[in-house]
């Protein structure tokens, strides 16, 4: 019991993932600043933001909303992100091997933060938040099928195993899945799915700041908003880590391989950041069409290619 609590709260779970994710979030903002020829924020900026929201700011409850659900939603978001982080990072960091079928569990747990954002937004009673919530719902419906197809393709490549640690072991034995044509296609599709899951710029219409004034987050302030920030930091680390585990032979912490593992994560986050800095926000209709037609088509082509061994 104590071991499980340690896994959940401290080492691969809440604290570790949040600290690494906060530094990655700083890295994202710094790269953004460099792309725009600016100087960028200091190293500990995500921590200042988090502690300011947690300790200093007042929490305002909506007058015409469901107050209990409004406050519970961010707590569930943090727990969903932390527990999916535990299931992803235990096999990835080589602490435990996980169980048979944990890939399916991770897939479902990763949708919990987005779902709780929708619930919290609709509970706040704000019309702009309702617009953001409906957009997030459409976005989930469009990218979930694509993400599932990517996972199906990877299960097929790994020889029909649904255990995350078996997939990593298979890649360590026979080379990374991203090493052939179908793997590269899957990597591109998965990067766009992660972009939509993190609500970064081409797909940030649920919280469009200039258009619907932060959308789903509009009524949150103080401690609940700090918890949402924490969830975003955790997701910003575990989703690139999950992608590396699925397609790029996982992380390795022996000797010089530490450097290589860190560079892998930084490279994936760099890709996400560059996509977010060089694209405009698309409409929700365009995003749905993009995923339902083009990304699904690419994923199915990758499944067929990998069936014939390319």
């Amino acid at each position, binding site marked *: 019991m104590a071991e499980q609590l340690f896994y959940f709260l401290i080492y691969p779970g809440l604290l570790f993932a949040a600290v690494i994710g906060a530094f990655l979030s700083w890295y994202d903002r710094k790269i953004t600043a460099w792309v725009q020829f600016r100087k960028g*924020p200091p190293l500990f900026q995500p921590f200042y933001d988090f502690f300011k929201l947690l300790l200093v*700011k007042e929490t305002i409850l909506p007058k015409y909303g469901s107050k209990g659900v409004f406050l519970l939603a961010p707590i569930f978001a943090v727990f969903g992100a932390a527990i999916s982080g535990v299931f992803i990072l235990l096999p990835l960091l080589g602490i435990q091997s996980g169980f048979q079928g944990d890939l399916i569990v991770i897939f479902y747990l990763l949708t919990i933060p987005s779902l709780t954002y929708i619930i919290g937004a609709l509970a706040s009673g704000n019309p702009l938040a309702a617009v953001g919530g409906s957009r997030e719902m459409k976005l989930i419906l469009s990218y979930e099928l694509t993400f599932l197809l990517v996972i199906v393709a990877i299960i097929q490549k790994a020889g029909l195993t649904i255990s995350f640690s078996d997939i990593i072991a298979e890649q360590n034995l026979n080379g990374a899945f991203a090493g052939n044509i179908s793997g590269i296609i899957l990597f591109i599709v998965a990067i766009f799915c992660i972009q939509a899951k993190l609500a970064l710029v081409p797909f940030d219409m649920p919280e469009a700041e200039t258009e619907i004034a932060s959308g789903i987050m509009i009524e949150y*302030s103080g401690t609940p908003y700090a918890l949402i920030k924490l969830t975003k930091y955790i997701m910003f680390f575990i989703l690139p880590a999950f992608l590396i585990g699925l397609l790029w032979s996982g992380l390795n912490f022996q000797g010089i391989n530490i450097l290589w593992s860190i560079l892998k994560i930084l490279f994936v986050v760099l890709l996400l950041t560059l996509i977010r800095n060089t694209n405009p926000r698309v409409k929700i209709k365009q995003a749905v069409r993009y995923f339902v037609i083009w990304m699904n088509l690419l994923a199915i082509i990758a499944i067929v290619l990998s069936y014939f061994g390319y």
Partner: protein
Amino acid sequence: MGFKEFCFKKSLWLFHFGGASCNNCDIEILDCLTPRYDVERFGMLLVGSVRHADVLLVNGSINKRDKSRLLEIYEQASKPILVVAIGACGCTGGIFAEGDTFAGPVDKIIPVDAYIPGCPPKPEAILAGVVKLLNK
């Protein structure tokens, strides 16, 4: 300086309220976020919702219609919130001070923490005002 106050001063998020402005101050405020001046190096961000804001930037002359809106925005913000009056109109009323529809400078409506005069103030002046606010 305690830990709380340190974190607060290191991450001030801005919300921009434009009254009946001639848009010069609006443009100069946006200049501060551009590559040349870049207030993000002090941890400042422009946010979309006043619930997330720590600093309320008010510019332009406040007329009778703006007054109720400014009060409502101020009440909706989560405290503590700092208010900065920017430009001659925000600080004193400027050339509109004697006007028929003028409802008083910003500090008669809500408490103001810093004044940045000028018509419009240069981005350097706005940054100097912000630094003074941080050292207060």
